[in-house]
Each structure stands twice: as structure tokens, then as C-alpha cells.
């Protein structure tokens, strides 16, 4: 590989993590946490996304799947060329962050592959029949599956959030935005704030779907039908 291409691929990996993947992460958690208002409100947000119609697969491919696949492929290469220095007398924050960036990357990879296969590909054919809020209400409250899904979404989500927030700091170093130690320290606070907001959205979303699942009406025809109606009555 020639030098310029190698350099461009390293920078592409860095850029994709922020845009579009970081922007998508924020949007995704914002949509999901809207379920705290009501299942109806959440389904309206989902319907808004699906109103893109035939454009949706293009948007998904261009802004999510292709960037994600490239970020994963380059990220796996990067992770395999590193060897953590944790445990070698280097008790520094960034040394830990380096190791966590790789560990959370692996967790995020496993979680995202499961998450996309389950909810994007396996559930998709049923989405008008069993709306997402109903599927998630079951996943997060029905025993014993909830014992798996709640921690899985919490841990998977937190791994993704750490990976993104720390990635913002390293993005700024890599591109030469934060050059000196002071600006890099300030950037840590910015990343912490971003991470805190995203964590709040994640926890809100999980609580929202648990709440929906615990609704006394949950699972009844009267509960589900209005949600189907949001999507045009299950066409």
C-alpha cells in the first residue's frame, strides 16, 4: 500500500467514528429515549424515520452500514497492532483510556453485530405487526430474557459511549486540533459531558422500555393496535 493511502485510511477511521457514526449514535439514543414520553410518541418517531420510504436503505447504507463496516475493519487492524501497557508501572489516565478504547471496541463490535442482526434484520419483517416498543417492552421485562437483555444493552451501550467519548479526545489529537496538554485536558471535560449526556439518554431509553413493558395494559390488543395504527395500520 502506498504511503498516502495508508495515511488516508488511518484518518478515515478517525473521521468515520465522529461523522457519521457519532452523529448517528446521538440521534439513535435521542429517538429511543423519546419512549419515556409514551410508546405512541416513540412509534411516531420511528414512523418519521420510515417515512423516508425507498430512500431509507440508501441512507442506512451510506450513513450507517458502510461507515460502520469500514470503521470496524480498520479498528480491528489497529487493535491487533497494539499491545496494552496496563500493568507495567504506568498508572496514568490516558494509558488506561488506551486499553479501554480497545476493550470497549471489542465489546461494542459484539454488541452491535448482535443488535443489528436482531432488531434490524430478524425483527424488521414484524415491525408493523409487533411494533418496536412492544418487542423492546417484552425484551426488557419478561423473565428470564430480561436478565440478559437489560445488562446487555446497558453494558453494550456504555461500551459504545465510552468508545465514542474517548474517541472524540483522540480525534482532536490525531487531527491536530488539541495540540498542547491544556487543550487536551479541557477536551477530556467536553468528552465527559458528551458521555454523560449520552449515558443519560441510554438509561432513559432502557427505563422507558421497562416502563412500557410494565404497563398493566401491555400486550393487550387495546395497547398494541394504536401503535400499529401509527405505522398506517400494518400495511
Amino acid at each position, binding site marked *: *500500500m*502506498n*504511503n*498516502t493511502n*495508508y*495515511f*488516508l485510511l*488511518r*484518518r478515515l477511521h478517525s473521521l468515520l467514528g465522529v461523522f457519521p457514526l457519532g452523529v448517528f449514535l446521538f440521534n439513535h439514543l435521542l429517538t429511543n429515549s423519546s419512549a419515556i414520553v409514551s410508546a405512541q410518541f416513540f412509534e411516531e418517531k420511528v414512523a418519521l424515520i420510515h417515512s423516508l420510504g425507498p430512500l431509507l436503505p440508501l441512507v442506512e447504507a451510506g450513513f450507517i452500514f458502510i461507515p460502520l463496516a469500514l470503521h470496524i475493519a480498520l479498528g480491528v487492524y*489497529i487493535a*491487533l*497492532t*497494539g*499491545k*496494552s*501497557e496496563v500493568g*507495567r*508501572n*504506568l498508572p*496514568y489516565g*490516558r*494509558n488506561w*483510556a*488506551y*486499553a479501554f*478504547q480497545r476493550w470497549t471496541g471489542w465489546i461494542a463490535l459484539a454488541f452491535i453485530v448482535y443488535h443489528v442482526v436482531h432488531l434490524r434484520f430478524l425483527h424488521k419483517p414484524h415491525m408493523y405487526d409487533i411494533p418496536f416498543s412492544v418487542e423492546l417492552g417484552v425484551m426488557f421485562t419478561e423473565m428470564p430474557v430480561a436478565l440478559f437483555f437489560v445488562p446487555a444493552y446497558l453494558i453494550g451501550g456504555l461500551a459504545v459511549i465510552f468508545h465514542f467519548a474517548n474517541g472524540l*479526545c*483522540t480525534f482532536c*489529537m*490525531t*487531527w*491536530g*486540533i*488539541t*495540540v*498542547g*496538554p491544556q487543550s*487536551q485536558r479541557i477536551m477530556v471535560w467536553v468528552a465527559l459531558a458528551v458521555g454523560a449526556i449520552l449515558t443519560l439518554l441510554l438509561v432513559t431509553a432502557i427505563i422507558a422500555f421497562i416502563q412500557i413493558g410494565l404497563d398493566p395494559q401491555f400486550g393487550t390488543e387495546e395497547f398494541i393496535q394504536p401503535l400499529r395504527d401509527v405505522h398506517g395500520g400494518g400495511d
Partner: protein
Amino acid sequence: MPEKITVKIKRQDGPGKEPYWQTFEVPYQPNMNVISALMEIRANPVTADGKKTTPPSWDDACLEEVCGSCSMRVNGVARQSCAALVDQLEQPIVLEPFTKFPVVRDLMVDRSSMFEALKRVKAWNPLDGTYDLGPGPKVDPDTQDDMYSYAKCMTCGCCLEVCPQVNENSPFIGAAAIGQTILYNTQPIGKALASERLEAHMGPGGVGDCGNAQNCVRVCPKDIPLTTAIAALGRQLTWHTIKNFFLR
């Protein structure tokens, strides 16, 4: 005051040989450093259990922390053994060779990869000829200060030793050569090769392979702002690439 100090050394008879540990007891002297302890062992190479052995090998030269040659892991910390004072160290004092360089023998390692890295990034001023070139360009004091902070580098290898991106699976050249890239890209004569240095950093092993663990700047015995150099070089590469894209 203790009468004896204990020194545990990770030894290796030659390149590719199996390493092994030996413990020595050395008579204590005030103000001893690790090198003087090693000299005592060399003078009387008998292990703590009374076995006669070969004298340990190590590198040293200046004995005042400016040459970098006596770098090793002292109690697990990458540093110069001449500046490691026995009174400030926990016992037993554990000495190991650096792990990111091939071992020549015992505590002596081959750091030529660092010098190869300096060649790759052309860490020099392009001056040649036997005639008088006249006075050099003027440099303002702030730039002089910046340049001096990088000029203190002694290629000791501590920054590479603690770098998670420097290992057998990665071609990363490490922070030292990145600091020197910034030094010579700042120097008014060295600047002539700036774009060649940037091109040299775009391939595998260049600054792009940095993982931002920032251990380098923590252990640098000369307090060189290595992470500042890394980000500054990232910025130079960002502009270099944008400029080239529109110029071509």
C-alpha cells in the same frame, strides 16, 4: 544504613538465548547508584547463594543522564540506571533490559531501530559543502526555546519502551523520532525538508500509528513535550494533505 543491598538481574547470554534471573548482594555505600552497584557485581561476580558467574553486561557512557545509553527497566520503570539512586529505590532492586529492543547481552540492548527511524524522517539540517555559508538565519527566542525542548532528546528509548504501539506486531517508529521531526520542521534550515518528513510519516509506522496512550511524555527523562509534537505533526499532516489535494 543497610550493610548490603540486593540486586536482581534478568540476564541473557546472547541474542535469542533464554533469559534467566540472578540475585546478587552488594556492600552498601552512601550515594550509590545502580551503575555503581553493577560495577561492584562486575568486580565480584558471585550470586547471593555463593555461585561464581559471569560479570553482567550493560551499556553506559556519560553517567549524568545525558547520553541515554544506560537505559533499562529499574524496578519495572523505564529510566537511566545512572540516575537511579539506590537510596531512593525499593529492595530488591530489579533490573531488566528494555523489552522493545533486541537484547545483545544481559542489560544491553540494540537501539539501532531508533537511529533507523531518525534516518527515515531525515532528522537533520540539509547542509553540505566546504565553503563558508555565512551566518545562519535568525531565530526568535520563543522558537529557540521550543526547539531546545526537542533538542534535549538523547534517543534513550524510554518513550518507545512504554509505548503500547511499539511491539513486534507494529512498525510504529515511536515518539522520539516524532519530536525530532517537529524540531527539524521548525528549524529554519531544516524546514527545507519539511514535506519529505511529512511524506515519511504517512506510511506504516509513521505518526498515524500513535495510539494516544501518552506514556511517552510521562516517562521522558528530559521532559520533552512528545505528545505536543505528535499532535503538532498531526496538524502539519492535516494541512499538508489538504494543500496537496488542491494543488494537484
